[in-house]
Structures are given as C-alpha cells and as structure tokens.
C-alpha cells in the first residue's frame, strides 16, 4: 500500500508504462483496397479498448490481425514486445469472441468451454475445475450438459465469452459481442462484461459500431474511418473535445455551425451569419484571422428559455420540431439565416403551463466553454 489518493487508471498518460500491444505503421491491403492505413497504436494491460467506426472502416480487419486471421501488408504488431508476424493463431496468447459466437454445435456447453483447455498444457485434472469456474463466472452451471441449440441467445453469448476466457488469454478480442442481443439484454450484458473484465484483469479489445456501447464499456475509444484512426482517447475526452467534425458528429448528438474565426480575448469569435453577433468560444487551437472553422455544440449544453438570458452566446430562433423523449425533449430551432440548432431540456416540471411548442420564438444560450472549435 502506498497510501495517498487512489490512482486513476490511465497508463496511456504514463510514459513509463509498457504497452501490451503495439501497432507500428500497420497497413493492410486487399487488392487495391486499403482496409487499414498506416496505423500506430498502443494498447495497455488491463485496458478495455474500443475500436469504433461505421462498417467498412477497418476496425474488424485490425482485430483479425491481432487474432492472426489476417497478416499486415506492411508494419508490425507487437504483443508484450514480441513481433506477432510469425505466430499462427493457435499459438497466440490471444482469444476471440466472435460476432456469430461460433459455438461448436456438436459439443455441449461444458465441452465448448473445455475445448481450448484440452489443447493447452493444462493437466487433465485441472481442466474440470477451470471449466466449472468459468461456468460459475457466466452463471451457466445448470446448463453445462446442454447443446448450443438448446439454450437462448443470451446464454449462447455467455458461453462464447466463457470459452474465450477459459485459457486466461493476455488479450481478449470481442467482435460486436452484443449485436445479436435485444436492447435491454444488451444493456445488462454491457455491465456484466465490465464486471468480468475487472474480475479477470484481462485486456479487452472490443469492436463495435454502437457509440453508446463503446462509451459505456471502454476505458479508451479509437474512432476509425476509412482505415485511419481519427481520435484515440477516453470517452469523456472524445465527447467533450472531439478533434474533428466527423468524430463530434459520430459520437452523440451535435450541431455543427460553419463560420470563420477571429481572435478574441480568451479564444475566438466565430462569424457564422450575416448581421448576427459572432459566437465566442474558448479553444486551445491556433487559427489565423478569417480562417474557416466548425463550431460543434452539444444540444444538452444549450439552455432554452422564453425570455432573453444573460450569457456569452445568446441567439433567438423559432421552434420547428420537438422530439419528446420522456425525461427530456430535444428542440430543433431555426436561427436567423436558416441555420438549425439542436437544444435539449430536461422535463423537470410536470405542469404544461410553461411548455414551449411549435412556432414559438425562444432564446438559446450557452457559455464560451461549452462549444468546441474545430478547424477545417
């Protein structure tokens, strides 16, 4: 025990930390198509790392290269400092949970989980104990003697997880592990996954196209597009400080306003429409005067009111659309000049007296810290 404040888990900020996986200039081409383009990336032990992107962005190819089912066209992948190139999939300390689960239909749940152990150095006497332990971890004890077609989809998902974890791999790969589950089960399973990841201390790399899932489970997220990494960071960083309009738009809801930047005390003033006051924003970027830029504004950062408030940025607009979601409502507001802006408001009041409806003129406001300036 060292005492003091509890350590925050952030090995990526520690220059002395040794990464478990290193991608060094990894490129993968299929014919003329470049699926993965010169990627450099470190993943650290005990991380829950998410590869996030639309289909065809190269995230699955990146994962399959870790498993050994694809070989990089260029570059190297290191596991624990050793080049993986010459190691076939069956000799890697890496296991994968497949999107289709890929359970062996002719074997029972028990034999599915024992499959990898029987092919390892583990003595026969210990295999039974390990399988029982895995069955307990995923709460499938009573189903050990069933075949995969005799259990439900959620149970199959857990068998696949237990099978992949049984050999205690250094790295577990999860390819869209929850895509086949319904929404409620998916939510519960996300927390179960995090729990299991913490209990076993295994490094997880998950591939997903579901940004909410990535935000929930991951310690860090890599947002991919067209075979490149756009941003690699923690979920709050990616959400609050996206580094491009694409990332801002891909993660969560956002309004992007195009304009030109002009230096201003503490940041920039963004001119966005003829005859309108510029929007002020703080930013670490260095832009020249008159440079084209994007301003990204999250809807929940925008206050909605019927009377003019005092704030750094105040604009007036007309309500075009309201999406009522129960706990909150999203307003689609048209600003002068036609620019649309989304704003969210929690429905904390029960009465309908103060309700804002279609066609109302309302005021939208936000502080200079709440928007994100992006160059283009």
């Amino acid at each position: 025990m060292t005492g003091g404040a509890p350590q925050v888990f952030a090995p990526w900020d520690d220059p002395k930390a040794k990464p478990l996986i290193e991608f060094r200039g990894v490129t993968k081409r299929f014919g003329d198509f470049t699926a993965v383009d010169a990627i450099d990336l470190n993943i650290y032990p005990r991380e829950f790392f998410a590869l996030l992107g639309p289909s065809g962005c190269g995230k699955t190819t990146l994962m399959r290269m870790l498993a050994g089912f694809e070989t990089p066209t260029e570059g190297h992948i290191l596991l624990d400092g050793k080049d993986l190139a010459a190691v076939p999939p069956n000799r890697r300390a890496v296991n994968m949970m497949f999107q289709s689960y890929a359970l062996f239909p002719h074997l029972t749940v028990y034999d599915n989980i024992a499959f990898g152990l029987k092919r390892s150095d583990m003595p026969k006497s210990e295999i039974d104990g390990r399988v029982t332990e895995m069955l307990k971890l995923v709460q499938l004890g009573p189903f050990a003697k069933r075949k995969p077609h005799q259990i439900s989809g959620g149970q199959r998902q857990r068998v696949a997880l237990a099978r992949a974890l049984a050999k205690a791999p250094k790295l577990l790969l999860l390819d869209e592990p929850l895509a086949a589950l319904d929404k409620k089960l998916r939510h519960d399973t996300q927390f179960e996954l995090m729990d299991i990841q913490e209990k076993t201390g295994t490094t997880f790399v998950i591939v997903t196209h579901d940004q909410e899932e990535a935000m929930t489970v991951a310690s860090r997220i890599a947002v991919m597009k067209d075979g490149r990494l756009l941003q690699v960071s923690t979920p709050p960083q990616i959400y609050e400080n996206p580094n491009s309009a694409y990332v801002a738009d891909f993660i969560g809801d956002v309004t992007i306003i195009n304009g030109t930047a002009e230096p201003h005390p503490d940041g920039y003033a963004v001119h966005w429409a003829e005859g309108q006051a510029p929007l002020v924003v703080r930013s670490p970027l260095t832009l020249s005067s008159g440079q084209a830029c994007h301003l990204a504004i999250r809807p929940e950062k925008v206050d909605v009111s019927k009377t003019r408030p005092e704030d750094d940025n105040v604009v007036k607009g007309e309500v075009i659309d309201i999406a009522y979601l129960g706990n909150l409502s999203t307003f689609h507001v048209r600003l002068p000049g036609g620019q649309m802006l989304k704003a969210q408001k929690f429905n904390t009041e029960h009465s309908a007296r103060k309700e804002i409806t279609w066609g109302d003129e309302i005021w939208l406001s936000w502080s200079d810290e709440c928007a994100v300036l992006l160059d283009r």
Partner: protein
Amino acid sequence: MRRLSWFNVTSLTLGFAFLYVPMLILIVYSFNESKLVTVWAGFSTKWYGELFRNEAFLDAAGVTLRVAFISATIATVLGTMAAYVMVRGGRFFGRTLFSGMIYAPLVMPEVITGLSLLLLFIAIGLDRGVLTIVLAHTTFAMCYVSVVVSSRLVTFDRSVEEAALDLGCTPFDAFRSVTLPIIAPAVISGWLLAFTLSLDDLVIASFTAGPSATTLPIKIFSSVRLGVSPEINALSTILIAIVATGVITASLVSKRAIARQRQDQRAAVAGA
C-alpha cells in the same frame, strides 16, 4: 384433411401408376410358380430359394457390394478433400479451372468415361478385375461426393473453424474435431450416393470389368439377354426392398432429428 378434386386425383393416380406399375408387376411375378415369366401359375417362393443356390449370382452380388463399399469410401475421402480445397482454399491460381474440371465428369456421357478408362487400363497394362472397377467407380463417384459436400461447406459458418484455430487447434485438428463432425451428415449422404451409384452402374462397369470379376448389374443384364428368368424377378424384388427400406429409414431419421431440434429450440426460448 382436404378433399382432392377429381383432376388432382387423376393426375396423382396416373403419375404413380407410371412410376410404380412396372415394379409392382415385377414383384408380383417374382412369387410366380411357373417358369414362364408371363403366365401366372400360383403363389410360390421357390425362385428365392433357387436364387440363393445360384453361385454366379451370389458371387456377382459379393463383388458388387465390395466394389461399392471400397469405391464409395475412397470417393468420399477424395471428394471431401476436393470440396474443402475448392470452398476454403481462397482464390488460388487456376481455381476456376480446377472446380470446373471436378464437375465435368457429372455431365460426361458414361460411355466415354468407361471407354477412356478402359484405354487407360490397357495402356498401363492393368488386368481388369475388382481393382479396375473400384478405380473407375471412384473416379466418377468422387465428383458427386464433392458436389454434395461443397454445398454444405458453402453454408458453413467459417468463424466456427476460426474459433477452433483461435483456441489452439492446428488446421488439421480443427478440420478433424470441428469441421468434420459438423459436415458429417453431408459426408455420409455423399458416401451413400457414391455407394448407390456404384451399385447400379452398368455402363462403366461393363467397360472395366474383366472375366475374373462381374458385378450384379452386368450379370443381370447378360442373363436377361438369354431370356428373363423368374430368378431375376426375385433378385430385383430383394433389391427394391433394400432400397425402399433404406430410403424410408433415412427420411424418418432425419424428420425425427429436425422435430427434436425444433422442440429443443422452443424449450430454450421458453426457458430463457
């Protein structure tokens, strides 16, 4: 139950009559007392007895079964291997040519296959007998097996094999312990198909059989040319019985397997 219209009843009757009346006549006459095939002289099973005392027929039956068993087995091994490479081998050089060439014997006239094999055996100086029939039957049955097995492999979830590799299997171990058990039904039907094809082949066998070995179809064909004997009727009836039993059993077994699987799945969904 729905009542069928007179039109449907008529077409059903005609269709089945067309298919089965000849066989029925054959079966009925196999129990004929008379030596004359077309004259009914009362019920008797004596021709079955005669048949089992006829050494030539028994020998031919033995050869046929042996040839069918061996050639079906070799054809299944080779055909499965060929199917696996064609489906799983990726896009290697000459793949289209090879897969075309595997299927070509399916459409090749049997006379040509038989003749070319005969020429080959003469050219390499191989005496015609059981071995040459086995080789010939393996050659043409292999492509049927490979068609059956590859159609199963195409619908097979590749990631199941990858999972086996991922869990520590060598490629051969993955094939043996995962792929093979899953495609086993297709492999078995491939074997059965090869076995049946070999059993009833006349054309290729008559090119490649020698004086030392005659198969049953050849034997039947040559005795019929000397006149149909009631013994042949008895033999054919036995063959029909064997085939019918096989087909009915197979369809019952697979129907029950499907029913059981459905029931399991319903139970799994209900219990979840």
